């Protein structure tokens, strides 16, 4: 039977764990949502996927924290979202038919970038991203939407650093070809 001291210690540990999870949630809500949005292509399903990701993360947080040995937990979170998104497509037997909601990024933040001001150009890029194989598309989303480095992407996808580097390189090359074809009307 637990003594008062043991119960107090367990309660303290639980509070610390909840505080850590709250910090993780606040730090990465935007990352998970961005990933989910670019995976499923609409806000409604992205919200659903984000909620499910954090609920699942909460269930396994203690173990993940213990096993991470101080490494960042963002790849772990994104891996959960990645698995849930795979189930989402499998269960509903679908893939996003259009690149992205028009009410999404095309209508908002992009015009401030200055690098690419043409809305049609952004739309074309996103459509080409959606035509990539799943693993290449995901690697690009992680790199460019979330700003993850090779090592983080490798952990999220369960691949080696070298394989991830090759994956990203091939994804960019293929995207270049797709964009070129789209711009010259060959698509």
């Amino acid at each position: 039977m637990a003594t008062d001291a043991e119960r107090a210690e367990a309660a303290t540990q639980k509070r610390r764990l909840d505080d850590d999870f709250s910090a993780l949630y606040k730090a990465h809500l935007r990352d998970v949502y961005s990933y989910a949005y670019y995976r499923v292509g609409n806000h409604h399903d992205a919200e659903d996927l984000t909620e499910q990701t954090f609920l699942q993360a909460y269930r396994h947080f203690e173990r993940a924290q213990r096993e991470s040995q101080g490494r960042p937990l963002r790849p772990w979170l994104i891996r959960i979202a990645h698995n849930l998104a795979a189930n989402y497509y499998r269960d509903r037997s679908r893939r996003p038919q259009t690149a992205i909601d028009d009410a999404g990024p095309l209508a908002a933040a992009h015009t401030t970038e200055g690098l690419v001001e043409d809305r049609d150009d952004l739309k074309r890029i996103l459509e080409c991203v959606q035509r990539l194989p799943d693993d290449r598309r995901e690697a690009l989303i992680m790199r460019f939407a979330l700003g993850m480095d090779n090592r983080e992407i490798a952990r999220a996808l369960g691949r080696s650093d070298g394989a991830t580097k090759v994956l990203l390189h091939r994804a960019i090359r293929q995207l270049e070809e797709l964009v070129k074809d789209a711009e010259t009307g060959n698509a």
Partner: protein
Amino acid sequence: MSQSFDIEARLKAALAPIEPPEELALRMESRLGTLVELAADELEAWELSAMRDPRNWPGAAIRPAAAVIVGVGAGAGLVVLRTRRRRHKRRAQAHSALDLAERTLRDVGREALRVFEDATPKR
């Protein structure tokens, strides 16, 4: 190389991070808050459920039983010791072996009663 840079810049612009809707953040915080409260309640109920778990019963039952056995053993030892202390007086007073046995039994009963009274909390 310049083309590669170009496509990466365009990708970065196209895949800009998306701010989650405010209502999602509020809903998430509410759901996580509920989960945290449920987990705290679970911790409170932990000891109670541990008592209900049959796997914890042997330990819980053996400890009081062992205490009773030790107490009874100590009491019996005390009765024997006190009774033995009066054995010379009993032999001197006894008329026969039967009388000695009766006196010994009476002493055992008297001492057992004293030990029992000493162990019973006074009101």
